[in-house]
């Protein structure tokens, strides 16, 4: 080896690459950041929210919802992993729609994304203010707490973090999400979940039909809507594709390990809560995992789960700011929105204007339930998020079919190829339809309002905005010519 090196002619070092003239987002992320982003957005759903499924369908209803919706999200993760490992661009599903279907669909998908994450961020900030009130109560203060102050603070701190750079933002998300996940695992071991019957009690579930499935199969159907909480947001990993060192490796690895983590977290959460709390209480609890920890009577578990609840909420809001701003930025870059939003900060390499622009919108929706003194509005805000996500999943079905049709296997490098096509796409479509109908029964007015909003936005886009769209940027991927064209 040394001989070869000695005999090799001296090759002058290559000249340094000329500096790029344009700006680009920082390509600094790896699989752990993608995991932290995807799981971080979602894990708060394990700490609170999933249990409303218990109120609708009982313990077994919530379990069936976790399974059925888990299949939906596994399909979402598989499809996103394949397509995004190829379409390595900020905007995720918006960019996919632009390449695979067309501008109007892309505009709508972009709006679905922004609304999904901004509404979720607003809900997270609202919950943070609730947690601040709860913590002050636990510390012995029983006066009124100014919720506005803590809503605004949580959004501002996270927006600032996002403004200053994606690497620190998602590294922090990885750490705090990891702690929140470990807290659930510790609770499982702390309650001797590996030895059912010692501390967890399930006899009541099977002894009476009224305990396990109090509202029968109709209740199971109704609980599907809240089963979304176990996994809602894992598809957000796609938004970071342009900032990955290698999207082809990081997106599939981060997304697939993310959905596996969430399936485990959902199973552990249901199991521990089902063995600790009666379903009648669980169905209306605000912080079910924390309540389960309190029931054990072990102080360290209660403190750990309280910390986990706060960290999971922060991680979710943090990831939502990241994702909403990338979607908004991408639409600005292509002139779907004013090009002003498509700017990148020359120092921090973040879509800074999109981040700043979305802050007041998130704050407005977060303070609305407090301002109007209607806590139930929080449910409506979250339903906006869930329905926007469902609309996006519906788009993913034709998108996947077109992707495989236009660029069949073998014509395009894929970082990941999901198995059994078209089964995942068909399954996704069917379950999404089922959840849509279940949501319509519970929140019909909200669904109709949202559809009308998107229709009006589409009319605005066609009449007033499409003329400005940068048509030359519709197909930016240097892919081979699609089959049939």
């Amino acid at each position, binding site marked *: 080896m040394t001989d070869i090196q000695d005999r090799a002619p001296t090759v002058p070092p290559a000249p340094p690459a000329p500096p790029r003239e344009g*700006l680009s987002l920082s390509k600094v992320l790896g699989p752990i950041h993608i995991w932290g982003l995807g799981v971080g957005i979602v894990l708060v759903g394990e700490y609170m929210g999933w249990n409303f499924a218990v109120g609708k369908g009982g313990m077994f209803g919530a379990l069936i919802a976790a399974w059925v919706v888990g299949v939906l999200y596994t399909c979402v993760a598989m499809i996103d992993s394949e397509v995004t490992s190829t379409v*390595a661009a900020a905007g995720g599903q918006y960019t996919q729609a632009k390449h695979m279907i067309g501008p109007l669909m892309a505009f709508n998908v972009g709006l679905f994304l922004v609304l999904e994450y901004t509404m979720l961020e607003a809900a997270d900030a609202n919950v943070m203010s609730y947690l601040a009130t709860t913590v002050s109560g636990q510390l012995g203060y029983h006066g009124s707490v100014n919720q506005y102050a803590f809503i605004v*603070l949580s959004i*501002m701190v996270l927006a*600032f973090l996002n403004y200053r750079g994606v690497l620190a933002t998602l590294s922090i998300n990885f750490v705090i999400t990891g702690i929140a996940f470990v807290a659930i695992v510790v609770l499982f071991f702390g309650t001797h979940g590996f030895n059912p019957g010692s501390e967890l009690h399930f006899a009541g579930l099977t002894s009476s039909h009224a305990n396990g499935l109090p509202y029968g199969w109709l209740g199971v159907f109704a609980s599907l809507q809240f089963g979304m909480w176990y996994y809602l947001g894992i598809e957000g990993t796609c938004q970071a594709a*342009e900032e990955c060192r*290698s999207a082809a490796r990081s997106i599939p690895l981060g997304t697939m390990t993310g959905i596996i983590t969430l399936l485990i977290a959902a199973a552990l959460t249901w199991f521990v809560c089902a063995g600790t709390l009666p379903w009648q209480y669980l169905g209306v609890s605000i912080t079910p995992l924390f309540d389960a920890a309190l029931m054990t009577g072990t102080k360290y578990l209660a403190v750990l789960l309280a910390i986990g609840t706060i960290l999971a909420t922060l991680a979710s809001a943090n990831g939502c700011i990241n994702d909403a701003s990338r979607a908004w930025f991408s639409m600005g870059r292509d002139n779907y929105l004013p090009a002003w939003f498509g700017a*990148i900060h020359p120092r921090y390499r973040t879509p800074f204007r999109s981040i700043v622009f979305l802050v007041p919108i998130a704050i407005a929706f977060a303070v609305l339930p407090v301002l109007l003194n209607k806590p139930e509005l929080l449910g409506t805000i979250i339903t906006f998020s869930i329905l926007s996500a469902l609309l996006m999943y519906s788009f993913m079905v034709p998108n996947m079919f077109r992707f495989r049709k236009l660029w069949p296997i073998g014509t395009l*490098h894929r970082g990941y190829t999901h198995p059994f096509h078209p089964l995942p796409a068909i399954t996704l479509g069917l379950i999404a339809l089922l959840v849509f109908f279940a949501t319509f029964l519970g929140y019909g007015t909200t669904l109709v309002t949202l559809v009308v909003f998107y229709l009006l936005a589409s009319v605005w886009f066609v009449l007033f905005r499409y003329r400005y769209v940068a048509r030359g940027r519709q197909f930016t991927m240097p892919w081979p010519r699609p089959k049939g064209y």
Partner: protein
Amino acid sequence: MIVHILEWAAWIISAGLAAWMIFDTVKTGREYDETFLTTSVEGTDELLDQTTTVGDAR
């Protein structure tokens, strides 16, 4: 009492962060040319360097 101090601290920190972000956004817009700030191109990845038909990389 401590809660009131925390509330005020929350407002002051929030106002400071908001002021800094707005100031920096305006300053950046003035310091740099708009065409430079909006020059980014989507999807620069090693997989995208493929102008010919290639095999599947499973």
